[in-house]
């Protein structure tokens, strides 16, 4: 199993009090919506402290797989699954960890920025503390707001308007606010579901920088349709594909560089070179 070595060795880690990042392991994961099978026996290791990119054409089950990783999948009434997901070896579906505690450790950033519009920028950042009933002093909260906004690369833009409504920021700022909000509960894994698909190129670049900055402190799993982005930000990648009328599966996974330059499967080469999908 993966170790947390690079975490300990990283001398640049600006927040040594952070919990070490965790590994996620999927074994034999299949998923259904009602009788419709959307995912077929997926095995994937998402190593601690690395960025794993999930790529593949629309409808191949990447987002479903991502939502299985923090039990968001089960919120859809007809959704079911089989297989195991382990967070540092603990099975998240079989009661090893309470679901709220697990979701705190495996944060998520969604495709569409979803800050809480009735809350201010600061309140949005610390919303996770309130939601999970964590008490913090006023100065702790202020420090947390600043450090999380710093890490999400948003601090300089909003430091003078922390009291503004979260919904008043631009789309790219809202998405970074959501990243700050997710970081504030100190997750050891961060799932990102096409976090840049609704954003312009400048905001996208800003978020990619953010990913690069936080990657050494938190394991990241990112779904993206942007091949260049996957290539730029990730260490590991997995290529999902679904045949006509068949559930999605992983064609191949492994080191990002290899997957993009010298993949084992010709379909991977075609896809990463934009020849289909």
């Amino acid at each position, binding site marked *: 199993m993966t170790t947390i070595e690079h975490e300990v060795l990283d001398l640049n880690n600006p927040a040594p009090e952070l919990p070490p990042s965790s590994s996620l392991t999927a074994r034999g994961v299949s998923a259904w919506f009602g009788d419709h099978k959307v995912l077929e026996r997926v095995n994937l290791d998402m190593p601690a402290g690395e960025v794993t990119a999930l790529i593949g054409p629309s409808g191949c089950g990447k987002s479903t797989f991502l939502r299985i990783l923090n039990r968001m999948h089960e919120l859809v009434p007809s959704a079911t699954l089989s297989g195991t997901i382990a967070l540092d070896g603990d099975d998240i579906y079989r009661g090893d960890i309470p679901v709220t*505690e697990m979701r705190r450790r495996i944060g*998520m950033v*969604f495709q569409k920025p979803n800050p809480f519009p009735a*809350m201010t920028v600061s309140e949005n950042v610390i919303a*996770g503390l309130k939601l*999970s009933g964590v008490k913090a002093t006023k100065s702790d909260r202020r420090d947390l707001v600043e450090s999380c906004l710093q890490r999400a690369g948003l601090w300089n833009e909003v430091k003078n308007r922390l009291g503004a409504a979260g919904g008043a920021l631009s789309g790219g700022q809202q998405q970074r606010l*959501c990243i700050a909000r997710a970081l504030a509960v100190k997750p050891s894994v961060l799932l990102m579901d096409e976090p840049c698909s609704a954003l312009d190129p400048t905001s996208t670049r800003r978020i990619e920088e953010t990913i690069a900055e936080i990657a050494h402190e938190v394991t990241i799993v990112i779904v993206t349709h942007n091949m260049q982005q996957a290539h730029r930000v990730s260490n590991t990648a997995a290529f999902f594909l679904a045949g006509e009328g068949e559930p999605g599966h992983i064609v191949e996974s492994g080191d990002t560089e290899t997957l993009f330059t010298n993949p084992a499967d010709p379909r991977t080469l075609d896809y990463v070179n934009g020849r289909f999908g």
Partner: protein
Amino acid sequence: MQVIDPSIALEGTTPIEEERVRPVTRRTGADRAFRLTTFGAGTLTLVLMGVIGLFLLVRSWSAISAAGLSFFTTSAWQPDGGAFGIAAVLLGTFLIAFVALGFAVPLAAGGALFITDYAPSKIKTPLVWLVDLLAAVPSLIYGLWGRAYLQPKIIPISEWISTHLGFIPFLKAKPGAGFAASTFIAGVVVALMVLPICTAVMREVFSQAPAGEKEGALALGGTRWGVVRDVVLPFGRGGMVGASMLGLGRALGETIAVTLIISPTFDITRLTHPLETGGNSIASLIALRFSESSSFGISALMAAGLALFVITLLVNAVASLVVSRSRSGASTEI
């Protein structure tokens, strides 16, 4: 380069107005017929409202002109004796409505939240039916049931409140005072009658809480209650106010159940002690007195009716204003 000054070019001529295009739409016969029908139906509703108001105003005019402003300050109701006014009945009407809302709003909010955010999907639909079915029970039945079944059960509660919370002046009962046929009991029954509409509107509002924000809260490790507190309730606030106002509109006009339960009083001191025997409302005053009034007495009752009509219109207008201005209400129709 030569610059042409338009004012020189146009010298001696009046500036020409650009002619705006007025888009022409040709309507088919069926389209025209349909427009006419819907326009007619819409207008008819407004005309009816106006006619009702006008009718009340005309029929009540002799009483209003006789009483003048004292109509609003007199609490007794003896039109033929010359002293009559809505001070007492108006107060009684609002007291019953407030007691009703005091029970109905929290119950409706809880019920609506249970249906939208907690109930397993299997029992959701039956629950919605059941709550809506409450609205189908005739108010007379509520009145009979309230008087025969509920009242004996509530009296001990009234006594308990009066004894233990008597330090709040209006809850303290005078020694020897009875607790039957009170504003409080009438309010509880009316609460049941406004519950369906309040629940329906709140359920509608809560169910529209954005799924993205709810998932965002869950993904932060939020519990269901956390999601309700931080996403659903802030989103639904405007809709809840609107639902309460709609309920208020209904409660103000409720007639037969209140008439069956209260023992009418025009005594302001007794009215302001809602736990004690005695209450009143405009609607039940009209229901009780209508068949036994002189023509002047009927005119006075019409004036009371006009007051009720105007108040309920205002309450409903404010309700729709509040709802349509709020984030949750913008897409909700009431």
